[in-house]
C-alpha cells in the first residue's frame, strides 16, 4: 500500500522537484529566476490566479443562496433540486465547453435568436470579445456544486439552538445571519472556496476547448513536447503545485475538525421552514432558471449530438442518430470508448483495493499510524492531474512504464491515485458506521482477523465501498488532464482525448458531442447508483 503511494505519487513528484531545483547536479533556483524574468510568464501566472478568483466569486454568488434555500426551507420540487444541483458537477466542463462554444458562436443559436427578435442587427462575437469571461463562467457553472455541498454541510452542523438563542436575544433575522450563522459557516465556506479555486487554477479542458491559451495550465500542456530539452517546464509545474498546495493547506487549517469546533453536540437539528406558496414558487423558479443556465452547455451538447446539421439556425434542421452510429463504428471513437471503460475499470479495482485497506486502517486506528495514513491519502487532492501527469512523463520515461510506448499502466495508476482520497473517505465512513463491537464479537467466537474482515466487516460496509468504487469509475471515465498529457498515440486515446482530437475535424464536433453524451450517460448512471447506495452520506464523500 505504501509502496503504491511511494511509486506513483512520491517518486514522480520527487523527480519533478529534483529536475526543477537541480541544475547539472547542484541545487539552484536558476530555472525559477529565468521563468520569472521571462516576459509573459508572470502575467500568465497572475492571469490564471485572476481567473481562479473570478470563478470562485461567481461560484460563491450561486452557491451561497442555493445552499441556504436547500438546507433551511421547504419549497416545491425541493427533493428534485437537491439531486439536480449535483448535475453540473458530474457533467465535465470540457464537454460543456463544446456546447457553450456552439451556443455562443458568431452564427450560433444565441446570436440568431437575438437577431431574429431584432435586438441586435449584427452578430456579436462573444467568444472573441470575452474569452476570459467565457472560460470563467463555464468553470464556475461546473464548480459551484462543490461549494454548495460545503456550505450546506456547514449549515447542517450548526445547532439550531444557536440561532434560536440569537432570535431570543433580540437579533433580527439579518443580524442573526451576520453575527451568528455567517461566522460559524465561514470556515466551511472557505474550505469549499479553496477547492473551487484549485479546480479552476488547474483546469485544462475548458481553456483548451475555448482556444484560450494564455493560462498556466495550457502553457504546461504545450511544454510537454519539449520537456526533455527544456527544463523550464518542470519549474512551471512546480510553481503550479506550490500554489495549489498553499491553498490546500489554508483550506485544511481553516476547516473545523469534527464537531468540536461547533462547541456543542448538535442535538437539535434544524427543521426546514415551509415557505408560503408565493415565496416557495419564486424560489423554485429561480432555482429552475439557475439550473437551466448551468446545464445549458450540456443540453447544447445533447442537441448537437442528435443534429443532422446545425448551421445558421436557432435549432437544428433535422435530427439523426447517425453520430451515435459513428461513435460505435468509427475506429477512433469506438476504441476510445473501449479504452476509457477499460482504464476506468482498472483504476477502480486498484482504488478499491488500496482505498478499502487504507479506509479500514484509518477508521480503526486512532493512533499516529491512522493519522499518517489519513494525511497521506488526502495528498492527491492537492496534486492537480496536470502536475501528476507531467511528473509521470518525467519520471517514467525510458522505463517499462514509459507512456510513449503504452500509457495504460500509468493512466490506470494515475486515475487511481487521484481518486484515492474519495475512495478512502467513503470506505472510512463505512467502517466508522459499523461498530467495532461486532468485530470483537466475531473474534470472541473464534474468527481470525482476516476472517472477521471478510465475513463481518466487509459485508456490513459493502454499500459504502461500492459507492466509493462507482465514484472512482465515473471520475475516471471523463478525466481530462492526465488523459490529454499521457495518451500520445491514437490507439491509446481515452474518451476525452478522442473528443479533443475530433474537435479539429469538420464533422468532428457532432461526433465529439455524441461521444461526450455517451460518456456522460455512463457517469450519470454511476452517480445515480452511488447516491442510492450512500443516501444522505453522499455529500460527505466529496469533502476535503
Amino acid at each position: 500500500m505504501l509502496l503504491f503511494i511511494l511509486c506513483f505519487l512520491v517518486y514522480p513528484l520527487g523527480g519533478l522537484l529534483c529536475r526543477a531545483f537541480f541544475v547539472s547536479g547542484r541545487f539552484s533556483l536558476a530555472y525559477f529566476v529565468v521563468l520569472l524574468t521571462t516576459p509573459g510568464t508572470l502575467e500568465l501566472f497572475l492571469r490564471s490566479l485572476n481567473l481562479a478568483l473570478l470563478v470562485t466569486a461567481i461560484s460563491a454568488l450561486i452557491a451561497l443562496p442555493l445552499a441556504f434555500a436547500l438546507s433551511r426551507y421547504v419549497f416545491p420540487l425541493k427533493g428534485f433540486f437537491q439531486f439536480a444541483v449535483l448535475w453540473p458537477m458530474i457533467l465535465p466542463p470540457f464537454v460543456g465547453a463544446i456546447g457553450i462554444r456552439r451556443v455562443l458562436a458568431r452564427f450560433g443559436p444565441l446570436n440568431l435568436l437575438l437577431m431574429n427578435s431584432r435586438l441586435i442587427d449584427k452578430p456579436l462575437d462573444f467568444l472573441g470579445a470575452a474569452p476570459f469571461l467565457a472560460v470563467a463562467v463555464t468553470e464556475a457553472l461546473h464548480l459551484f456544486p462543490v461549494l454548495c455541498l460545503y456550505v450546506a454541510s456547514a449549515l447542517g452542523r450548526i445547532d439550531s439552538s444557536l440561532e434560536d438563542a440569537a432570535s431570543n436575544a433580540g437579533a433580527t433575522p439579518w443580524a442573526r445571519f451576520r453575527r451568528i450563522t455567517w461566522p460559524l459557516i465561514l470556515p466551511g465556506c472557505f474550505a469549499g472556496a479553496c477547492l473551487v479555486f484549485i479546480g479552476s487554477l488547474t483546469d485544462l479542458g475548458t481553456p483548451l476547448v475555448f482556444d484560450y491559451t494564455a493560462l498556466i495550465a495550457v502553457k504546461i500542456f504545450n511544454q510537454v513536447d519539449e520537456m526533455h530539452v527544456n527544463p523550464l517546464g518542470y519549474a512551471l509545474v512546480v510553481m503550479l503545485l506550490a500554489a495549489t498546495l498553499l491553498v490546500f493547506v489554508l483550506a485544511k487549517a481553516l476547516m473545523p475538525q469534527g464537531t468540536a469546533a461547533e462547541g456543542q453536540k448538535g442535538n437539535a437539528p434544524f427543521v426546514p421552514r415551509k415557505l408560503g406558496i408565493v415565496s416557495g414558487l419564486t424560489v423554485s423558479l429561480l432555482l429552475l432558471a439557475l439550473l437551466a443556465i448551468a446545464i445549458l452547455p450540456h443540453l447544447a451538447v445533447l442537441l448537437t449530438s442528435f443534429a443532422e446539421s446545425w448551421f445558421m439556425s436557432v435549432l437544428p434542421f433535422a435530427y439523426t442518430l447517425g453520430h451515435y452510429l459513428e461513435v460505435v463504428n468509427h475506429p477512433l471513437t469506438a476504441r476510445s470508448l473501449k479504452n476509457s471503460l477499460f482504464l476506468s475499470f482498472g483504476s477502480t479495482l486498484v482504488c478499491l483495493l488500496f482505498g478499502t485497506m487504507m479506509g479500514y486502517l484509518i477508521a480503526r486506528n486512532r493512533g499516529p499510524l491512522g493519522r499518517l495514513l489519513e494525511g497521506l491519502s488526502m495528498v492527491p487532492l492537492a496534486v492537480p492531474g496536470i502536475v501528476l501527469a507531467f511528473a509521470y512523463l518525467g519520471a517514467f520515461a525510458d522505463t517499462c512504464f514509459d507512456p510513449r510506448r503504452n500509457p495504460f499502466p500509468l493512466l490506470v495508476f494515475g486515475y487511481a491515485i487521484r481518486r484515492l482520497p474519495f475512495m478512502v473517505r467513503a470506505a472510512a465512513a463505512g467502517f466508522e458506521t459499523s461498530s467495532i463491537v461486532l468485530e470483537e464479537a466475531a473474534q470472541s467466537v473464534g474468527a481470525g482477523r482476516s476472517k472477521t474482515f471478510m465475513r463481518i466487516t466487509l459485508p456490513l460496509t459493502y454499500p459504502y465501498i461500492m459507492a466509493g468504487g462507482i465514484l472512482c469509475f465515473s471520475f475516471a471515465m471523463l478525466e481530462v488532464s492526465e488523459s490529454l498529457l499521457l495518451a500520445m498515440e491514437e490507439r491509446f486515446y481515452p474518451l476525452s482525448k478522442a473528443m479533443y482530437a475530433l474537435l479539429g475535424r469538420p464533422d468532428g464536433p457532432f461526433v465529439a458531442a455524441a461521444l461526450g453524451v455517451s460518456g456522460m450517460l455512463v457517469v450519470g448512471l454511476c452517480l445515480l447508483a452511488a447516491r442510492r447506495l450512500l443516501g444522505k452520506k453522499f455529500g460527505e464523500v466529496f469533502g476535503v
Partner: protein
Amino acid sequence: MASVSLENVAKSYGARKALQDITLKIEDGEFFALLGPSGCGKTTLLRLIAGFLSPDAGRILIADKDMQQVPPHKRDVAFVFQNYALWPHMSVAQNVMFGLEMHGLAKAEREAIAEKALAMVEMQGFWDRRPNQLSGGEQQRVALARALALRPAAMLLDEPLSSLDTKLRAQLRQVIMRLHEETKLTMIYVTHDQREALAMADRIAVLNGGRLCQVGTADELCRRPLSPFVAEFLCLEPLQNQ
C-alpha cells in the same frame, strides 16, 4: 415582568398531535414548572411561547398582549437551552452582551450589565474565556447570565440541568432559585424530573401525551391527584425511592 397565558393552544407535527387544547395562565413573578415524561409536549409548549414555533390553533399572550404576529426577537422572553447554546465563536462576555447590543445599548452600558449578570451567577472571572474552555456547569451559568442580562419579561428554561451531573445539578438548582428570588422574574421551567419540579416550583403543570393533566401546587398535586397518571408520576415513585 409579565404573566403568560395560553388559550386553547394546539400544535401538530404532521399527523402527530404534539399539543392539544392547552389553556394555562402563569402569573406575574411565578416560578412555574412544566412537568411530564419525554415526548409529552412540554418543550414544544415552551418553544411556542418563545415564538420558535407557531401554534396551529389558539392564542398565546405575554403581558396580556397577543403574540400571534410577534417574531421571536421581539417577544421579550429569555430562553435558556438544554445544551446551553453558547455561541462558540464569541467569548463569555460577548455572549452575554450580544442581546444587549441587539437592543441598541451603548458599549459602556452593555459592559456594566454583563458584569452584573455574570456576578449574579458567580462567573465574574470568566469574561474573556471561550465556551469550549468552560465545564458544563459553567456554561449553563453563562447561559443563565445571558438570559438575565436582557431583563426579560419572563424566563423560559428548557431542562437546563439535565445535561449536568447530580452534584452540579443541586448547585445550579440553588442558583436558579436564588435568581428567582432576587429578580422576581416569571420563570417557566421545563423538566422531566418530578423532584426538581416539586422542590423548585410555585405551581406545576403535569403534561402527558400532549394534554394537560393537572395544574396546582406541589402540595395539591400530591394530596389530590386527579388521575392515576399524575399520582404515579408525581408522588409514588419518589416515596418509594426515599
